[in-house]
């Protein structure tokens, strides 16, 4: 880079340190000479190092630093010196001495011992302790070695201490918060070839950092020179607001079904066993109804009149042409309250409200369903299902395959396959697999089928083909974001949510 463009991009801090580098080599000295604090000076030096103008060297050294009291006494002078200053050849009481010298009682007590050892004072014990100048008193009044030592400039390299310094230090170290030895890094600078050239060049310090309203109003900017920035370096990150990534995927899926002419169904999460199970011809002793599979609440549902009809369908098929389950139907069982185990409950409720003149009709739902599971990396107690029904007197199995293939193609899966399966409310029942284009294998995504007449006839009032599906969504969504732990969907880690790639399908 040529020297001029290098100069144009110099930050004000860099401009401050550069001129002193001719003379000073050590960080604290550079900071002092450039009138910056050490952190600012250090930042400037690091930037300069990045630009290959200098190299920084760091060497661990032992140094003496002042403690809290050390700093205080450096300013005010040592209390023993202050006491010495007010002493005369006559004995005086300690309280008088403390007041005259402006030191605290505590400090007086600490100083007596020090001064006595140096023979700087004589003491007289009486009702109150009294003191006067001792044999060495006048000498110490003239020059007090510890005080002289304190007046030096700290941090003080340990290596530079003289024999006399060490004696003073020994005394000072015994006292609270005066001086201590620390391991510090001594940072020195060495200019590179480029640095030497730059330091020898006169750098104009008068550049503008920011454009201001004042400059614009006065037109002042015309006379200014703008500092050039390094536009290539990284800047601190910001984050905008965002929808939850899963909702981005859900919006997309809603769009697909709406585009295909489906009407959206929604409904309650808390349902009766009647709607969630019995209206769907799930036998009352079906394993899925057991406590370890389904969440129950300790309440009892009010039943719609329809329940008596459903009871007969279970017991003997009623007018559906079916034999029914040939087992007694329990009202208590059907009144149980649970968290819906599938969105198919919404389809059942929709059918119960539909009239003949509404046909053909198509509905979809995307909703949470619940299973009694403890959370772990592959199990959630609540997850989404994509539900759909087509109520059409002319519907058949080929159409079911057609709708689902269309959906999965829009989700990015070209090939769809159906296998025989079993669900209590559909006949035929099928399992839907999609062909995973990367893994090259069939992946199971959910169930589908044509509702049984035992489901349709009592709810709708007449028999009619109803194509139905309930597809899992977690797998497709997890796959898109390459999740290995299903709990990550609802971890709500703000870092994860902020940095998640958008749903771009």
């Amino acid at each position: 880079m040529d020297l001029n463009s290098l100069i144009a991009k110099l930050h004000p801090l860099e401009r401050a340190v550069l001129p002193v580098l001719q003379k000073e080599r050590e960080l604290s000295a550079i900071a002092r000479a450039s009138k910056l604090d050490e952190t600012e000076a250090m930042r400037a030096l690091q930037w300069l190092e990045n630009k290959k103008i200098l190299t920084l060297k760091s060497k661990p050294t032992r140094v003496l630093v002042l403690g809290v009291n050390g700093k205080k006494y450096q300013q005010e002078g040592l209390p023993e010196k202050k006491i010495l200053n007010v002493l005369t050849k006559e004995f005086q009481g300690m309280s008088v001495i403390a007041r005259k010298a402006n030191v605290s009682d505590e400090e007086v007590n600490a100083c007596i011992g020090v001064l006595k050892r140096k023979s700087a004072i004589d003491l007289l014990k009486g009702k109150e302790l009294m003191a006067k100048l001792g044999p060495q008193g006048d000498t110490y009044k003239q020059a007090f070695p510890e005080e002289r030592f304190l007046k030096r400039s700290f941090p003080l390299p340990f290596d530079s201490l003289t024999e006399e310094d060490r004696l003073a230090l020994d005394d000072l170290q015994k006292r609270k918060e005066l001086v201590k030895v620390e391991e510090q890094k001594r940072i020195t600078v060495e200019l590179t070839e480029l640095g030497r050239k730059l330091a020898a060049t006169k750098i104009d310090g008068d550049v503008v950092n920011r454009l201001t309203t004042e400059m614009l109003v006065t037109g002042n900017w015309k006379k200014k020179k703008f500092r050039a920035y390094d536009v290539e370096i990284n800047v601190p990150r910001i984050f905008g607001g965002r929808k939850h990534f899963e909702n981005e995927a859900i919006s997309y899926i809603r769009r697909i079904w709406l585009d295909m002419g489906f009407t959206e169904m929604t409904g309650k999460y808390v349902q009766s066993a009647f709607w969630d199970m019995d209206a769907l011809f799930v036998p009352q002793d079906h394993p899925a109804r057991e406590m370890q599979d389904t969440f129950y609440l300790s309440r009892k549902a009010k039943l719609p009149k329809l329940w008596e009809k459903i009871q007969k369908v279970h017991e003997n098929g009623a007018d559906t042409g079916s034999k029914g389950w040939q087992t007694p139907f329990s009202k208590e069982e059907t009144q149980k309250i649970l968290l819906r185990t599938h969105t198919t409950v919404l389809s059942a409720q929709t059918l119960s409200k539909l009239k003949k003149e509404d046909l053909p009709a198509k509905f979809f739902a995307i909703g949470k369903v619940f299973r009694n599971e403890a959370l772990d990396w592959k199990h959630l107690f609540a997850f989404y299902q994509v539900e759909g029904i087509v109520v059409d007197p002319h519907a058949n199995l080929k159409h079911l395959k057609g709708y689902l293939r269309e959906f999965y193609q829009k989700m990015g899966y070209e090939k769809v396959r159906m296998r025989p399966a079993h669900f209590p409310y559909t006949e035929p029942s099928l399992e839907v697999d999609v062909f995973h284009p990367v893994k090259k294998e069939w992946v199971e995504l959910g169930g589908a089928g044509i509702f049984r007449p035992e489901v349709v006839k009592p709810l709708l009032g007449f028999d009619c083909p109803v194509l139905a599906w309930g597809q899992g969504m977690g797998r497709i969504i997890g796959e898109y974001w390459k999740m290995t732990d299903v709990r990550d969907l609802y971890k709500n880690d703000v870092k994860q949510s902020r940095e998640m790639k958008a749903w771009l399908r």
Partner: protein
Amino acid sequence: MPTITLNKTELEKLIGKKLPLEQLKDRISMLGTDLEKIEGDEIHVEVFPNRPDMLSEQGFARALSSFIGVKTGLRKYNVKKSGHKVIIDKSVTMRPYTACAIVKNLRLTDEKIKELMQIQEKLATTHGRNRKKSAYGVYPLERITFPVRYEARDPKTIRFRPLGFERAISAAEVVELHPKGKEYAHLTAGWTKYPFFVDAAGKILSLLPFTNSHDTGKVDEMTKDVFVECSGIDLENVKVALNILVTMLGDMGGEIYSLEMAYEDKSIKSMVTPDLMAGKMKVDREYINQRLGLELSDAEMKKMLERMGYGYEKGMAFVPVYRADILHQADLMEDVAIAYGYENFKESIPTMVTIGQEDQAEKFYEKLRDGLVGFRLLEVKNYHLMNGVELNEKMMEKGKGIALLNSLGEHNHLRHSLLPSLLKNLSDNKHHEFPQDLFEIGRVFFADAEEETNVGEEDRLGIVVCHEKTDFTEIRQILDALLVYLGVEGKVKETKDPRFIAGRVGEILIGSKKIGVIGEIHPAVLEKWGITVPAVGMEVDVGKMLELAQ
């Protein structure tokens, strides 16, 4: 659903054909069982609960052999009369039904005995609903003197040696000492008497629904003839179970003999089991063709049904005796579809017109989200279930949330508010950068006697703003901006709420309707969640908001 393990070589022998591996895999899947894996000679398959007849190697092979066209049509099983009798005593009210049979001339190897045990277990788990509905026993015939009695007795008066035990114990001790006694004790709660099978010589054959006797009920390689018993609380259920077991033994080469079931209370008139007469069902060809979108002729229909093990003659299907799942035409239709091959249905979408319509509330929530992300808020999605401590103690509240009866995990209450969820989020994100300004649109739950379920549900919007310098003004600004965005006028009226700092909390009103609450979160609440940065928040009923915005 039960998973069974089949031996490939044995299966191929039973089917009467060897298929290439890929084809075998494909056929197993397309027959209607979930193929889990094939490892060497072991095939692992999940059998759906509507087909308990396929739980045994014989039953599975029977179905597969028909399906691939080797041996199609209805299987015939000969039943000879044994001339013996089982007497069902009036006392067995707790498990009143049994159906029994004799099978002779079996050649049982160690493998076959294991299979026999396995099918009984799997069948009792699925078809017998974990022995609740029915359970089964197989006994060496040679040790039994007919007539056998099925009767209930006081277990304290009976001693016998249960299977797997070294010595005889009191029948009353079986519940505590025998593994099956412990496992199924809950089925017999409240019983003072238990059902036993006892032979004419007074020997105990078994104690139901737990275990056979070791002395009279242990089948080994020397056993050639067996007595089979299926007993439970549902007559149809035990009869089908017996059919599944005897046809399996028949396929193993056994000869089937019937027994007379004499019910002493005459509730059931003389009955001979097993009854292997196929059931009949008229085939509605038009219905099946219409639902499947096919045009199968009578001959084709016959071919399809025969591939699924049915017999067919002049519009009439003969349903195999081991199938309990054929309730309706629809069930025949499914089997026809399977025989036709699910892979052979050509997908199509009919050209009928329907107009798509989105749910008004869902649409409104999308609009809300659009607005809120414009205010730089980050959306979170939380579980509807939390624990009681999070909903109450940590929020300075009491008795909130609706408890679940039977949660397996720690999330055992339906939440009543979004604020606990949002505070949990702040608590979980302490180590990340601030500000953390979050919102959630989600459902909350509360008791409501007006509802069918006695539980009311409401969708809410919750917002929390958390950083060093936040205060009431900031959350109020967000509320105001939101109201402007929706074009409604609202106001805030001072209120009291222990979750917020007193004097810095208000209720949100649109007109005179209260729709929510807004304020500075109380430091006592923040402390309970371990949050060390100030936070403000609000929560509104978005259903009401939509109503009032329109």
